[in-house]
């Protein structure tokens, strides 16, 4: 029992993680997540609209991209974007190398999943909504933007939260590309601390650091969800 405490809840070791665990590690995890998720939302929306398009020249490429990146491990996509492309194209230099390759990879992975979620949301809006809007003389684009998508987004908030939580955890994979001074996210930071101290307690602290962010986030979304349901 004592050994368990010594090995997993060694407060001396944990105390030394601060403040960088918050100011560096948690901050970077949040930044990576937000950048990846914003990119993923944009990409996902485009891909979703492509997937439901009436033109097969939009539908097929969109389906191809979605299936490919849903079918690949995120780590492989990250390594491919971060190392594979620069090896293949030596002239390729990423601007802001600290963030770009990793966030682009995360956005692609998230975008593929979000696309399917958003598509399901759009298809979940009753057909009559689009038909009614069109019969009032709205163009397809206008009807989609002003009538269907707002209703679809209400439907997809819970599954999108799932994507956000998954992406949040996938940021832990980015360390494979290397980290510059001040650029470690939570998992990388605590793994290095384990390595330095020879003690496992930093992993416990890191786990708590993730939960401190995810649990309130999921609660807030649950609240929003309850509220939007009430307003319907």
């Amino acid at each position, binding site marked *: 029992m004592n*050994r368990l405490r*010594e*090995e997993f809840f060694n407060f001396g070791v944990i105390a030394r993680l601060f403040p960088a665990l918050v100011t560096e590690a948690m901050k970077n995890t949040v930044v990576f997540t937000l950048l990846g998720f914003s990119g993923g939302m944009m990409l996902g929306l485009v891909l979703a609209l492509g997937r439901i398009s009436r033109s097969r020249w939009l539908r097929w490429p969109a389906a191809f991209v979605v299936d490919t990146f849903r079918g690949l*491990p995120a*780590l492989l996509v990250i*390594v491919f974007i*971060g*190392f*594979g492309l*620069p*090896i293949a194209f*030596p002239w390729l230099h990423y601007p802001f*190398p600290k963030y770009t390759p990793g966030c682009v990879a995360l956005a692609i992975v998230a975008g593929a999943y979000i696309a399917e979620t958003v598509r399901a949301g759009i298809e979940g809006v009753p057909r009559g909504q689009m038909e009614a809007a069109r019969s009032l003389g709205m163009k397809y684009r206008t009807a989609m933007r002003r009538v269907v998508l707002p209703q679809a987004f209400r439907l997809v908030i819970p599954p999108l939260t799932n994507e956000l939580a998954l992406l949040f955890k996938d940021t832990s*994979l980015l*360390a*494979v*590309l*290397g*980290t*510059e*001074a001040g650029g*470690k996210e939570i998992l*990388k930071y605590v*793994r*290095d601390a*384990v*390595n*330095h*101290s*020879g*003690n*496992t307690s930093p*992993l416990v602290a890191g786990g708590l650091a993730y939960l401190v962010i995810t649990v309130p986030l999921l609660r807030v979304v649950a609240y929003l969800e309850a509220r939007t349901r009430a307003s319907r």
Partner: protein
Amino acid sequence: MTRSPFAVRTLAVVAGLALAAGACSSDNNKLKADQAASSTAPSGPAAGKALKTVSPGKLTACTDVPYAPFEFEQNGEFDGIDVELVRAVAGRLALAPAFVDVDFDGIFSALNAGKCDIVASSVTITAERQKTLDFSVGYFQINQSLLVRKGDETRYNDLPALAGKTIGVQSGTTGADYAKANAKGASVKEFTGADDLFTALKAGQVDAALQDLPVNAYRAKTAGDSVVAKVFTEGAKEEYGFAMRKGQADLKAAIDDALSRVKSDDTYPTILRRFLGDTAGQI
């Protein structure tokens, strides 16, 4: 140095699965290989004294593969300087060597959980670690070195030449500390595993890799796409040792004794020559 191969995550996952599965075939292969090696090991003078180990009659070592030339897998067998040293030490103690592949992050937890008797995985003896672990006598002294892409060796032959460039290191290593302290004007990028670092060098994401000479030298020798441009011989040396749980005086004494004997006879230089070739003398 200190490493934490998050290395190839997939490998770690595979290793984890193998461990979880316990009796899966790749594990059996490793065991077979180790038993084969042990059957030829001579029983040493310590044979009479029964040493208490986690698995009776065996000296079990946790190691994180791959970290060539210290530990790696070849044809389904563990090989490398650490692995051969463990085999030699176990032989002196009349124990059969056994190996468990554990990701470096979890390696001390595995030790404390009783998965193995020692950690033999290029572990540097540090004051920080000595607070929670015991170490054997040191068995390998390390110089830091600079590995660059082939063709860059005259351009980037020392740290000042890398001002404004990016130097890759492994997180938490003395190489990382050395780079941060001495590479003025260069940005230092940290990687978890040597393999990621080498890929980044190849991909042009870093311009040099600063880490333990044997690892850089082995890469230069085997991959042929890079060259060791500089060896840093000044400054304090660090040393690898076998890590053990605290409070095992018998085991520590036996290991220290066996390791000292291995170091003082022919065995040690033979092992070094096998893995390091001509650079053995330099290191």
